[in-house]
């Protein structure tokens, strides 16, 4: 049986995205930036509107808008006048609404709004694949370059700074990477579901990882599995593809919780760690 080409494109697009989303998603989870990722994704709709208005490639429109949005948030955070979650709440919904208003004002042009909100993985073209893989590879290379600095800044920002880590640069680069990933994954996952691909695989990977790097690789693997499972389900039961991938990812997350619980029961050594260590001879 020959797979339909659109299905192959969908699978390749989803896999490319999952590979990039794994390590980046780990940092989103470690740095507690889930809401930030969501807000960034919401601003992407404004990018779509701008892309149409300026008649430029939508990916560039989205990437540009997300980058400006991300820089604005990083800049406003430095002010420390408004709590970050309030700030994100204001900006994210405003960006989403302005995007919707702008799209509606374009009148005659028919825009597939649902496609932007929830993604249309089955409409992925070879050109989209090129965007995903080139953008994704670049993002991974840059992330690898700032990995140590970013991890140090995540563990303890002041410690990192005292030891000469360029903390602000690492944070800025990471924010820009997130913007790029949101832009390239828009077509596949849609505005409302992008964050799930960052967070759910990372969360599922946590229980089985012993190192940060291990968790990143595992998160990518879980993401790939979720894409494959979700697409198969979508094909079989004719369900929307993006949400099917998310549901698959969530199932894997539940499975990871179950497996972790089983494993903990298998290793019956819940005694306090310090008790079996030498040096403690009692009072």
């Amino acid at each position, binding site marked *: 049986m020959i797979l339909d080409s659109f299905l192959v494109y969908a699978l390749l697009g989803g896999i490319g995205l999952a590979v990039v989303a794994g390590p980046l998603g780990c940092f989103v989870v*470690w740095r507690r930036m889930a809401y930030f990722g969501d807000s960034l994704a919401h601003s992407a709709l404004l990018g779509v509107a701008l892309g149409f208005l300026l008649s430029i490639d939508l990916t560039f429109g989205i990437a540009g808008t997300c980058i400006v949005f991300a820089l604005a948030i990083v800049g406003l955070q430095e002010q420390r006048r408004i709590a970050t979650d309030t700030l994100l709440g204001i900006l994210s919904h405003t960006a989403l609404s302005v995007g919707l208003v702008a799209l509606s004002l374009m009148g005659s042009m028919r825009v597939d709004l649902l496609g932007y909100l929830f993604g249309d993985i089955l409409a992925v073209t070879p050109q989209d694949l090129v965007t995903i893989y080139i953008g994704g590879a670049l993002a991974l290379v840059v992330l690898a370059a700032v990995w140590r600095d970013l991890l140090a800044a995540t*563990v303890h920002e*002041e410690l*990192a700074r*005292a*030891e000469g880590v360029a903390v602000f640069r690492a944070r800025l680069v990471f924010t820009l990477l997130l913007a790029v990933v949101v832009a390239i994954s828009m077509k596949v996952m849609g505005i409302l579901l992008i964050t799930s691909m960052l967070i759910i695989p990372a969360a599922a990977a946590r229980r089985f990882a*012993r190192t940060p790097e291990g968790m990143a690789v595992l998160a990518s693997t879980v993401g790939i599995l979720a894409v494959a499972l979700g697409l198969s389900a979508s094909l079989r039961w004719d369900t929307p593809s993006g949400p099917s991938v998310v549901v698959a990812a969530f199932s894997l997350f539940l499975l990871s919780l179950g497996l972790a619980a089983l494993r903990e029961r298998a290793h019956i050594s819940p005694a306090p*760690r310090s008790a079996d260590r*030498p040096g403690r001879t009692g009072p």
Partner: protein
Amino acid sequence: MSPDQAPLVAATGICKSFGRREVLHDVAIEVRPGEIVALIGPNGSGKSTLARILLGILAPTTGQVVRRPGLRVGYVPQRLPIDIVLPLPVSRLLTLTAPASREAMIRALEEVGAPDLLDESASSLSGGELQRILLARALLRDSDLLVLDEPTANVDFNGQIDLFELIGRIRGRHGCGVLTISHDLHLVMAATDRVICLNGHVCCEGVPGTVSKHPAYLQIFGPHAATSFAVYTHDHDHEHGLDGAVVPAHGHDHDHDHGHSHSHDHPHGRGGKTARP
């Protein structure tokens, strides 16, 4: 003055304001190689702010900080909460900002008396264990200057004494300068070459014995502080040797503690009161 006796870090005329509140006013401080300097002061006296300025984490509003060229700093922050969601073995915590071989890591851990923690998860460490790991990090980095912010904050009393002895031995072996920040007066004093008493400005400065009788010191910490200091040094010399083993911070060695607990609690309470001169 020989070149290696030049200060590791020297700050002069440091003022720092947050908004309209001036936290530090015209503070001067320096740390030389091989010297243990204790920065003491009540809560809100600007000790941590001053340390952050010396470390280059914060910029002073006015004033100058001169670090010796190529200075390597080992920083032991007051708390290092490691989120359970981040899988971080001790070995990765040790190599957070610079790589190191496994042998070097084991050597550093042995030196701080925690050789079997290398593959433990950092989020499961006790307060005392974490302090040792952070010290091992500083050793691995071959630091010229150790800066410890309230190193005993999450460590029980016996652990505190072990920790200060450890810091003293590290200084002796590596010749690095040490700056500790504390409001635990008596403990600091026993292990220290020079005490700087801070309360927005430098109130007094000198060897522990002198400072503990200084009027400015007594005004801030109360007359009991001087006696509790004396009690501690006595006990310290006779009772508490370190065998290099890990002493869990939650160990319940209460029979050991009793002799100390009075003198220990006093300055704690007083430190909380911000007595502005």
